């Protein structure tokens, strides 16, 4: 029983980490209208940065990795935003981001050597605490705390602040916002930069539990796609709920019954879809 709870806690950590990635993806798509399929590659880039700068678990290396991660993520997101400004079609955007992702992953893979690598947590966070009579790694609790703070900050920014009002307004009606003197393009750029930074940051943060490995990029991309589709495009709360469920499925279920995990994720996706589209049909506007 206690073991189950410990695994469940792992699920929360992974779920919140995924939420950070998925939130960026959701904002890119919902606000900037950019179909971003290189998010998984950005996450992998974060994991690689952690491995390069802080594989042995030093604070200096870890902080450098986080800062470099934030900067490169923002730069990558901003660069994509500028590039894709001239590529309005989602299918073409998919081609561009798949291509960019392939190249990035290939470069990263030759860097870390195409095998699963471990990254140690920084000193002080590498120990364990006793939780429900079992040893539990401190670093996972740290991830939960940091990701929870990050998620809350993201939520508050979008829901309460003036930038958040701008973001929501641009997502719903960029023409109206433009007539009020705000360049929707700038908002798009900011959102894409934030999305990229979040993905790489999450990669660095998660590296001590999920180091660079082949296939990590597609796993993270798929899980975040499931989260935003099942949670409903543009719904931050739905995404958070979906992220926590996906986190549980990916850890608890995967431990108990490995084959079932992908089926459960598929079921989550399809049920989410069915519920959403049903809802959508009911509220559909008369054309």
């Amino acid at each position: 029983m206690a073991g189950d709870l410990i695994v469940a806690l792992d699920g929360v950590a992974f779920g919140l980490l995924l939420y950070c990635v998925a939130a960026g993806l959701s904002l890119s798509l919902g606000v900037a209208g950019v179909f971003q399929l290189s998010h998984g590659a950005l996450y992998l880039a974060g994991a690689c940065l952690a491995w390069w700068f802080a594989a042995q678990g030093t604070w200096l290396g870890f902080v450098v990795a986080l800062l470099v991660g934030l900067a490169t993520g923002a730069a990558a997101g901003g660069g994509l935003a500028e590039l894709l400004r001239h590529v309005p079609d989602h299918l073409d955007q998919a081609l561009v981001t798949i291509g960019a992702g392939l190249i990035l992953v290939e470069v990263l893979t030759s860097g870390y050597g195409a095998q699963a690598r471990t990254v140690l947590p920084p000193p002080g966070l590498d120990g364990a605490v006793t939780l429900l009579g079992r040893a539990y790694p401190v670093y996972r609790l740290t991830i939960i705390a940091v990701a929870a703070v990050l998620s809350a900050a993201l939520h508050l920014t979008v829901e309460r602040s003036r930038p958040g009002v701008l973001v929501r307004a641009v997502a719903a009606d960029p023409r109206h916002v433009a007539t009020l003197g705000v360049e929707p393009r700038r908002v798009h750029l900011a959102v894409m930069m934030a999305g990229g930074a979040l993905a790489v940051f999450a990669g660095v943060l998660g590296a001590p539990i999920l180091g660079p490995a082949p296939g990590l990029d597609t796993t993270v991309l798929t899980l975040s796609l499931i989260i935003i589709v099942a949670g409903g495009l543009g719904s931050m709360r739905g995404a958070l709920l979906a992220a926590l469920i996906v986190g549980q499925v990916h850890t608890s279920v995967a431990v108990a019954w490995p084959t079932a995990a992908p089926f459960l994720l598929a079921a989550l996706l399809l049920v989410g879809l069915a519920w959403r589209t049903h809802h959508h049909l009911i509220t559909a506007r008369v054309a």
Partner: protein
Amino acid sequence: MTGIAVDVHGLTHRYGNATVLDAVDLRIASGSRHAIVGANGAGKTTLLGLIAGSGRPTDGRVRFDGRDVTDLPHHRRAQLGMSRTWQRPAVIDTLTAVDNIALAVRRTPLRSARRAAIHLLDQAGLGRAGNMLAAHLAYGQRRILELLTALASEPRLLILDEPSAGLSEQEVAGLLGQILTVSDATTLVVTDHSMALIEAVADVVTLLDGGRHAHTGEPSAVLAHLPSAGDLSASPAVHAPVAVTTREAVRARLQVRSLDASHGRHHVLRALTLSVYPGEITAIIGSDGSGRSTLVNILAGLHPAHRNARISLDGVDLTCSSAAQRARAGLTTVLQGTLPIPGLTVADELRLCGTDPRTAADALALPWIAARGRQRVETLSGGERQSLLVACALARRSAALVLDEPTEGMAGPVVDRLRDSLRRSAARQTAVLLTTTPSNPLLGTADRVLRLSNGNLHDA
């Protein structure tokens, strides 16, 4: 032919808090030519959509030939004998004209369906266009093609939503010819802004007003209820316009030269020239489809004009500026039909505009704007929402103010205050441009009224 083709009972439709249709009862006799008229936002398109099955009503029933079809999807109603056209012609661009029609001929092998389609096209004088992709047809031809497609299934009920929108007078005449040949076995329901078309087609007319069924009767009787464009010439300008001699001396604040614009292949505006002077309220009247909203969108920087156009504000060329740059340069626009942004509060909306609640509330003397800061905009009524947007725009006190159909959904007293407020803005040397349908109550306060038709402005 007697009997009821369509029986609409207590039909109500709401989007959020806005009631678009309010308990409408309507009977359409079999074989009749029934027109639905009313101002913008009166609910005409929504009513047609609910009859055709493009959506489900909030409340009420629709019967077709005695059968309750309220819960039937669009295609089932089509199978029962309904057919329709849209305001913007819905044709399949990727297929030829023949195949567009052939697809609508049901329960027939494709080969004979195509033969039937060619026959229909020949009869309509479009035989040469048969093998062209619909995407390559001119706008007027697309209209006719859509009508032929709708007729190809030999419907018992044909619903035409604004068939003349965007057509030249000559094209309307051609379309009218097509509509008049529709067999008597087909019941016809039509909305249109062209009263000439309504008079030529309809034997019964229903007037919708604010989502309610106001009146049904003989065309001449109902159309007399409508405030027509002709009344305008009688409405005196209350305030003396800037005299022509002074105008030469006063420089126009907002200036538009040689403006051409298109919607796809449809040429909407032709070499249009317009000057809006400080201290003056200029009104442009035009029906839907006349290019009125296109003009506003072009001024706002949201729709492309052809290359040779020039737009300037206070002598500064804005032709290549983005919408946001124009707004910052002092050109404030209120677009028609701006939908509330879900989740935003009244205070958020004011923050977005960059105005403080007091000024906005004072603009139309609506204290609730300052008091109800925490209310979500999607829970405002349509009129309140519109008042909020207009109040925000007024509070910006910009050099030029462009309002497209600003009174839509507004309560009468608010319209009166808007009239005063526009005069105050004009007194502050703001150049005010109103664009409306010919029946707008604000027209009385305009210093100059211009009519937009055939893509250009004429003195009204």
